[in-house]
């Protein structure tokens, strides 16, 4: 198992290298001269050339790429922000806790609601409870988060004046963003749980469990849910990764200083080192989450674990 984890971690190197090259190339071919933007319209050609030389932008593409990778590997540096002149990594790490907190709150809320309603929906297939739950889930998935966020602010902040609409000062500030971000994900998890459970409900071993005289609740939780878990965990992992990067709108609406908002601000200001750094940071997070999900698989399904294990005894000797 340890060998497998190390192998997976080593695999992250070529993946990240690929991400770096793609992101760097995209930034390189983006039109617009950085120095001109930084200096403004009034800049002289001499000062533009001087700044380009200072930033290393007069070098050929390959050299720039190599320097960027060298910076990451040797100095754990993602470069310096053009705007704030601070190391990019520091800027990201300063904002990351807010993003992580928001994503974690949203995923926890979505997982609880999604799994509970998904199970109920599958067990009561085509009954009223199922119809209502699938209807609400469809609504949740279809609702654009920015629209839902604005509605929530309108009702709970403006009309009722119960909850704050911006900032991260108290725990109350987190309620509306969490609901805004979690609603769609809850719908996705609910639908996955339902279909995955329905697959398992028709399996013969469920009938075996009933034939043992087991209580229906235990049949559902011990036999059905555990077998339905793999696709559910997968979708939660994917959604968690997406939330890290995709909370942009939500962070903007609720004025939360996270990396999503930072990314948008950086793009608007052509602050390329910050854009690249943020994308790389999120990509690294996603691969780590994927690794954790893959490790979780082996705890859920022993068949997956045995693939990674070299067994001393033959699997089949009967």
């Amino acid at each position, binding site marked *: 198992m340890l060998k497998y984890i190390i192998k997976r971690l080593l695999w992250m190197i070529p993946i990240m290298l690929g991400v770096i090259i793609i992101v760097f190339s995209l930034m390189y071919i983006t039109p617009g001269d950085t120095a001109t933007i930084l200096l403004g319209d009034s800049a002289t050609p001499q000062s533009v050339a001087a700044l380009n030389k200072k930033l290393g932008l007069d070098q050929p593409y390959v050299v720039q790429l190599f320097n960027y990778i060298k910076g990451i590997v040797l100095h754990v540096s993602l470069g310096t922000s053009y705007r704030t002149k601070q190391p990019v990594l520091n800027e990201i790490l300063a904002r990351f806790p807010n993003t992580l907190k928001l994503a974690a709150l949203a995923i926890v809320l979505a997982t609880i609601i999604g799994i509970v309603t998904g199970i109920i929906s599958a067990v009561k297939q085509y009954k009223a409870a199922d119809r209502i739950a699938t209807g609400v889930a469809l609504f949740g998935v279809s609702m654009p988060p920015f629209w839902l966020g604005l509605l929530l602010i309108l009702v709970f902040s403006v009309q009722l004046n119960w909850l704050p609409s911006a900032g991260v000062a108290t725990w109350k500030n987190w309620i509306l963003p969490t609901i805004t971000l979690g609603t769609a994900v809850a719908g996705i998890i609910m639908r996955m749980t339902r279909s995955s459970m329905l697959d398992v409900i028709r*399996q*013969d*071993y469920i*009938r*075996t*469990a*009933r*034939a*043992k*005289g*087991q*209580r229906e609740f235990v049949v559902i939780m*011990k*036999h059905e849910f*555990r*077998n339905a878990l793999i696709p559910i965990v997968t979708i939660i992992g994917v959604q968690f990764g997406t939330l890290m990067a995709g909370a942009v709108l939500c962070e903007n609406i609720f004025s939360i200083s996270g990396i999503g908002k930072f990314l948008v601000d950086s793009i608007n200001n052509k602050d390329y080192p910050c854009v690249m750094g943020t994308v790389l940071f999120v990509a690294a997070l996603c691969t780590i989450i994927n690794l954790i999900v893959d490790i979780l698989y082996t705890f*859920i*399904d*022993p*068949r997956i674990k*045995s693939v990674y294990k070299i067994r001393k005894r033959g*699997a*089949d*000797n*009967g």
Partner: protein
Amino acid sequence: MNEKLLEVKDLVIHYFTDDEEACAVNGISFDLKEQEVVGFVGETGAGKTTTALGIMGLVPAPPGKVLNGEIIFEGKDIVKLSEAELRKIRGDKITMIFQDPMTSLNPVLTVGEQIAEVILLHNKISRKEAIERAKEMLEMVGIPGERHEEYPHQFSGGMKQRVVIAIALACSPALLIADEPTTALDVTIQAQVLALMKRLKTDLKTSMIMITHDLGVVAEICDKVAIIYAGEIVEFGTLAEIFEDHRHPYTEGLFNSIPDLDVDVARLPVIKGLMPAPTNLPDGCKFYPRCPYATERCKNENPDRVTITDTHIVRCHLFRSAESIKET
């Protein structure tokens, strides 16, 4: 000693879909005495498994529904029992071996856990003791006890079926229903599983219902045989009566279609036609469209049970009670 363990009277189970009604079981009646093994023989879709599920109280509802009949087990009517009462019987007094061992075991639980689960449900013992008992059960069906911590995918098909048998026998049931226990297995493993079942019959004296379409399996293990066609028992008798002195044209057709080692024929005789769909059964005798002896009466009137001997019952217009000469 030889008391009635199970009495099924006029059992009717239908499946309802939005626009059709599938008549799976249409008035099945039979008795099962203690220590007796009765074989259910019939084509796929004849209602064998549905009857078995009815006895387990496990007919999937919806779409299934028990419309009529009694299933008296140890003096209680299973049809009328509550779910909680049924749960006490299931897995403890009546157990079932399902057809396909590959899919009958939960892939994410160890086999030991799966055997211990049924033991824990019906006995007041600790988890540790239950695991010990599960190991003993594995040994009994010929699997080393230390393999209890392994998962189903680590066993071969024949071994999985033995685990399924171990689950079914873990609480020493009074009645074991085996639903085609050897169908999904290859021939050598079939022989092993059959030998195991025979040992259970002689050692544990468990009553069994053996569902199969293999008359060879029936000859090996059964005391009595029920020939089932389109949800009805068309002939019921002891092993000797069915094999040596069968009366019903369908039974005759079944036996004629077994290859004979001494006679060289190009093609095996078959029963012409197909079993009627359970959604569209003929009036009168269900077998008349395929019956070589069918008359006008067979078309309109469903035959009653005709008693040939105390143990031999046949459902056919060709016979009268207590006489055994064909009319045509």
